[in-house]
């Protein structure tokens, strides 16, 4: 069972209907500007946003919606890891930390979210084709041994 799961997992790759909302963070002290997109291409307009201050789990620091161009901004009042939640009410939702320094600069907490499309394409294809080749060889060798 484990072996099969491994084989299947390694074959993984088709982005079958997968597109969460991705975010790109821009620091413009004292504000933080967040641009939301579907898979880095089309903006996510009028999506619901919740922003939580570091250590805050209950009441959000700010709420609202992205604008027509999928942009949302807020002004943090302290340094730390802020939590940004965006949901377009149509099944696409992303939750990401945003690191904020005292000066107002910082970076998005998730590298994968900022992965540009060409890099995503190359990474995905490399993993798929590389693992497919490896597993094909493995299965073929296994077959030869059993004969």
């Amino acid at each position, binding site marked *: *069972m484990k072996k*099969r*799961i491994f*084989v*299947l*997992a*390694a*074959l*993984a*790759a*088709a*982005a*079958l*209907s*997968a*597109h*969460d909302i991705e975010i790109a963070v821009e620091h413009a002290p004292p504000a933080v500007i967040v641009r939301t997109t*579907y*898979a880095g*291409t*089309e903006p*996510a*307009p*009028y999506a619901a946003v919740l922003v939580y201050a570091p250590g805050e789990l209950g009441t959000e620091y700010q709420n609202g919606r992205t604008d027509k161009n999928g942009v949302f901004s807020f002004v943090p009042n302290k340094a730390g890891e802020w939590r940004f939640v965006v*949901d*377009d*009410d*149509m*099944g*696409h*939702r*992303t*939750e990401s930390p945003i690191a904020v320094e005292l000066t107002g600069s910082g970076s998005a907490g*998730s590298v*994968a*979210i900022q*992965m540009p*499309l060409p890099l*995503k*394409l190359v*990474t*995905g*294809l490399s*993993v*798929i*084709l590389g*693992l*497919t*080749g490896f*597993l*094909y060889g493995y*299965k*073929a060798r296994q*077959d030869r041994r059993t004969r």
Partner: protein
Amino acid sequence: MHIADGILTTELCVAAYAVSLPAVYILGRKIEPEEVARMGLLAAVTFVVSLIHFPLAGTSIHLGLYGLVGILLGRRAFPLIFATLLFQALLFQHGGLLSLGINSFNMGAGSLLGWAVWRLPGLPDAAKALGGGFLGVMIPALLMAAEFSLSGYGKGFYYVAVVYLVAAVIEGALTAAAVAYFRRVKPGIFAFSQA
């Protein structure tokens, strides 16, 4: 159509895992090397296709080729979809591990139904491919809408399913074109899905 973690109820996600994991095991048994190669190539094709997005009715959609995957892979489509969704969740943070079971269930059901349509006797290839490609999108969309409804989001998600009608028609046409092409240049490619 790709549901992220934290949206549906945990009970629903766990129930979907209870269906998806045994399905992955049963439908993924005894994979041959030739099937590995085919699954990898189809994974690569669908991965590239899925990166091409187009805006529609206030949201963004893309093709998934679920019906074509079902027609070309047969029962192996379900484990392939599970594996690809796992890959996406781990590498690109698309979807999530909690919703992996339910996403696999939705999309896998679309692929398997596409395969079932393909195996219907007495119909021309073009009609079966068109129907398979169409249902490959509409079944996951309707399942997703039903799951959102069950999770207390109301019936608004059925509107989203209607939006996917456009994608379903496009996928149906593309699937029919792909099947006609393969039938001409490599008819043996359908041997797996006929088994």
